[in-house]
């Protein structure tokens, strides 16, 4: 068992220890196991990463043959290349940090060990997902993180709403998984393999037909949409905020939800030959980015704002994938992991300080009370909004630039992205103004307890804030690189994996202009937020009232939930109850059980009536029988 295998297995070990024995171990030990093992994993990942960074070849490790038949062979194998390295670093790194954070956040929870067991389980599955060499293993991790997500969303299982949210997440994800599985089947049918390298190589070498390529790509997209909360399968994500906040940070912001992006990047060999599907991916991403941002504008629950923001940001990543700008997508994934985790954890600290209060209308004026939390939150928000030179700026800009310049990009796509960026700035600062400034709406009862987070939480916030600020420097945009003679280590690190995308013909001048525009848009968004919420909120209320139905539409998430609930769920339920259970089942029951037995019963009555008790009737039967026999046998013959 080598270093690479250990990376996912250590969290699994943690899960087993905490899951089986956790309730009997002291909390300190539970926390140590839970944080220590992922930390070791992180160390191992770092080691592998360094070897890759030095120019080493990707690592492969075949554990065992999962199933082998003539013409069918699937191995349980790990693969560790540059993309995996980035993903693994994010997963183990941010994961470990969030574990540490959780030791304080969950310190008083009854399900302490259970929580960490789930969290470690999640890490195991996530690592399986990113390290799997083939679609099978990836799918195992893919469904596994879904399970962990289900368990963690419904972590406080006494609350039926929370368990429902968990269920919803799992079931909606399953819709996507169906697409994933069908895609895998189709890929096998044509390529005869599920191994990523072989798949990409196969489809790079020969494409069956465009229709096939597009079908495969779209099925994969369905899978990715489910996991990454893209329209139309995004409905589970806001509800998923029912889970503990660190969970939202880890699973529903930093890692799991970005698995879709990872999948698209992994199977770039398929997508590159499915241009129509690529366009759909790009526009779908843009749509989600835009819609997510609009929904974020209207939320009052601090976590839901962040949830819609996550959706929107992943929309950006999808857009990048759709444009073939995989490095940009992965880059945004990477920066997003830091600042969004930081935001969630910051929000968690706020919620922790307010004893579970999540509604921003009952916050306010917290900047003074918890300045440390506020400052990290602010920094991460700025990073998210794309204020230079924080990380979000670089990564988002890279994507917007692709939108403009990539072969299947267009100014329209860029425009959507830019407007979304403006909205992002608006809703983030709306949240900041609502929560941290203005009059305090915190109930008196909770006023007393407002406190800065304990050390373990603070440290994590600081680390994440630093990364949010600085992580973007690894991937300078081309124009700046050339301008200042810098290198972009992030992109050069990834270059062996992704075929260099066709860069646009538009010159650097355009790039610089666009960059400036996006900065201006961001600034405008922030300013607008101040106008609406920073000065006082009357204007916001007026606009909200004025926008009436539109506001309603947006704040209800474009009625997606109601649509699904009303049409799909109700439809299936009605099908189940009204049609199948009442009609089909009863007809079958009637037809196969009741009717025949009634028929038999009627016949027995008839037969009994023949048996009159009169012996001469009996004789008559016999005589008739005799006559018939004689007629048939003698006369007739």
């Amino acid at each position, binding site marked *: 068992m080598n270093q690479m295998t250990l990376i996912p297995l250590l969290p699994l070990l943690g899960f087993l220890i905490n899951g089986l024995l956790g309730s009997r171990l002291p909390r300190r030990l539970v926390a140590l196991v839970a944080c220590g093992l992922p930390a070791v994993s992180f160390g191992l990942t770092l080691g592998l990463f360094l070897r890759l960074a030095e120019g080493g070849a990707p690592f492969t490790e075949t554990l065992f043959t999962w199933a082998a038949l003539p013409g069918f062979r699937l191995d349980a194998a790990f693969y560790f290349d540059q993309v995996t390295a980035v993903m693994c670093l994010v997963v183990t790194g941010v994961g470990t940090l969030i574990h540490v954070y959780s030791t304080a956040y969950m310190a008083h929870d009854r399900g302490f060990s259970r929580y960490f067991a789930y969290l470690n389980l999640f890490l195991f599955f996530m690592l399986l997902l990113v390290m799997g060499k083939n679609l099978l293993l990836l799918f195992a991790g893919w469904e596994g993180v879904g399970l962990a997500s289900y368990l963690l969303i419904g972590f406080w299982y006494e609350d039926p709403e929370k368990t429902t949210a968990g269920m919803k997440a799992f079931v909606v994800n399953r819709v996507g998984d169906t697409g994933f599985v069908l895609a895998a089947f189709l890929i096998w049918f044509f390529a005869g393999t599920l191994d990523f390298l072989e798949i990409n190589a196969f489809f790079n070498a020969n494409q069956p037909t465009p229709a096939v390529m597009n079908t495969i790509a779209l099925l994969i997209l369905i899978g990715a949409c489910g996991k990454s909360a893209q329209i139309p399968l995004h409905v589970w994500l806001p509800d998923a905020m029912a889970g503990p906040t660190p969970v939202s940070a880890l699973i529903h912001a930093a890692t799991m939800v970005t698995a879709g992006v990872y999948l698209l990047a992994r199977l770039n060999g398929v997508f590159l030959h499915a241009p129509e599907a690529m366009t759909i991916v790009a526009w779908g991403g843009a749509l989600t980015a835009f819609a997510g941002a609009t929904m974020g504008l209207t939320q009052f629950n601090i976590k839901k704002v962040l949830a819609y923001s996550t959706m929107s940001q992943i929309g950006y990543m999808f857009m990048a994938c759709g444009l073939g700008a995989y490095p940009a997508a992965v880059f945004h994934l990477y920066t997003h992991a830091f600042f969004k985790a930081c935001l969630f954890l910051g929000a968690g600290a706020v919620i922790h300080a307010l004893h579970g209060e999540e509604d921003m209308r009952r916050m306010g004026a917290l900047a003074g009370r918890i300045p440390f939390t506020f400052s990290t939150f602010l920094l991460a928000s700025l990073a998210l909004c794309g204020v230079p030179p924080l990380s979000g700026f670089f990564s988002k800009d890279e994507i917007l630039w692709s939108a403009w310049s990539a072969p299947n990009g267009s100014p329209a796509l860029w425009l959507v992205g830019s407007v979304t960026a403006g909205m992002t700035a608006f809703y983030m600062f709306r949240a900041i103004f609502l929560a941290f400034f203005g009059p305090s709406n915190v109930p008196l009862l909770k006023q007393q307890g407002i406190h800065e987070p304990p050390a373990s939480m603070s440290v994590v916030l600081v680390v994440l804030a630093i990364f949010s600020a600085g992580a973007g420097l690894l991937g300078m945009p081309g124009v700046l690189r050339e301008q200042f003679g810098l290198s972009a280590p992030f992109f050069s690190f990834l270059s062996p994996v992704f075929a260099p995308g066709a860069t646009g013909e538009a010159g650097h001048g355009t790039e610089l202009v666009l960059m400036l525009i996006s900065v201006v848009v961001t600034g405008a968004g922030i300013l607008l937020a101040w106008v609406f919420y920073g000065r006082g909120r009357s204007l916001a209320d007026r606009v909200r009232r004025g926008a009436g139905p539109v506001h309603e539409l947006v704040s209800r998430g474009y009625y997606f939930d109601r649509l699904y609930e009303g049409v799909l769920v109700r439809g299936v339920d009605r099908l189940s109850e009204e049609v199948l259970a009442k009609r089909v089942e009863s007809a079958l029951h009637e037809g196969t059980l009741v009717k025949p037995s009634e028929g*038999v019963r009627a016949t027995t009555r008839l037969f009994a009536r023949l048996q009159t008790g009169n012996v001469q009737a009996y004789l008559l039967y016999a005589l008739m029988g*005799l006559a018939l026999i004689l007629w*048939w046998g003698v006369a007739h*013959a």
Partner: protein
Amino acid sequence: MAADLLYGLLPEHLLLGLIFILMLLDMFRANRQLGGALFAAVLAVGSSLLLYQLFRGYSIELVPSEIVIDRFALLGRLVILGCGLVFGLCSLMQANSCKYWILLVSSLLGALIIMDSAGFASLFIGIEMLSLPAFALMVSFTGSAGTGEGAFKYLLLSSVASALILFGISLAYGVTGSLAIRAFAASLSSGGVQNLTAAFLVLSGFFLKGAVFPFHAWAPDAYAGARLQVTAFLASLVKGAVVLGLARILTSLLLNGEIVATITVLSLASIFYGNIAAIRQTTFKRLLAYSSIAHAGYMMFALADSTGARVEALLYYVSVYALTTIIACTCFSLISHGEGDSLDLLDGAFATHPVPAGVLALAVLSMAGIPPLPGFLAKVFIFKNVVASGLLLPSVLAFLGSYFGAVFYLSVAFRLFSTAPAVDDATGEVGKNTAWGGVLLGTALLTLFTLVPGIFNLLL
């Protein structure tokens, strides 16, 4: 020749002697148990003698074209004596006088004569000797009012049957000028109105005696009217002897299309009628009656086969059916203590009488033809011939008919287990009941049939 007459018909002579001794005993009012003991002893001796003859390959034509001892005669008599022995053992307790044994033995003697007969005269004598004592059995030793009616119905239809058979025989005699069955069989193959009429009359007579639809109607009433023990006798031995008698006539004769068609249709009708009508019965004896109608259908169905294996199949079927019926009746009376014959008595009987209830359950399931019980094998033996003769559709229909049979057999079996047994199980077993001997012997024989289903194939 005289020695052969003595040796070849020794079982018949033994029974005859037994009748005389029993008469004497009855005259001197000897111990009641003695009759039973003698009966058992003589039948056991007779059976072993037949077995011996069987193994020695004994075969002789004693009276030319009337009495022929061949493999069939030996086996048929063995079956009759074996079943008779089991039946006798089962009814030891209820038999309260030597007269009972005399009647029983007379009837058995008739059955034996049927098995020997190669001519119509002996066949007729056998049939009459078989059924006349049965009427007497039905009406004697009982104070119940219904028995007279049942017996009368049986007697009337049975007499009509005899008349039909006789008329058929006379027609056959008119054609061949001889009473030899073989001669008639030979002329039958050439067809002709008189031959066919004769054949169908004889066949109808046997159908009447064997209670095949639509000649069946006397059976439910006669069975219901008699005591359970006598019902068992009628359903097992009498019916078995009639069927074997028919098999004796036909042996492996190839029948013409009309006869086969008639037999097929009537058998199917019997199977369906018996099985379906039995579903709504609430008393054991009537149930048994309808079930026996259905079984008559199966047995007649065997005659429709043209592969020549019907004798083996019928011997197996008759022995299994007779033994199963006897055992079922005995177990029923063990459970009901001889009081009444309502099926309600069986409810939850497994809790109170686990052993008889268990055996009864097995017996009825065997009758239903549930594998691996011998009843199933018996059906397989018949059906494989019929299917092999190309009658697939009738066979499928017959299977369907037996499906209805499963319904009521099963409900009997289910009654036994219907209420969950109480914790204190097995109250005092029925103590020193000699019926156990019969049940045991019967079960042992059935087990033998199950383990060595090819037994008749080996012996024939």
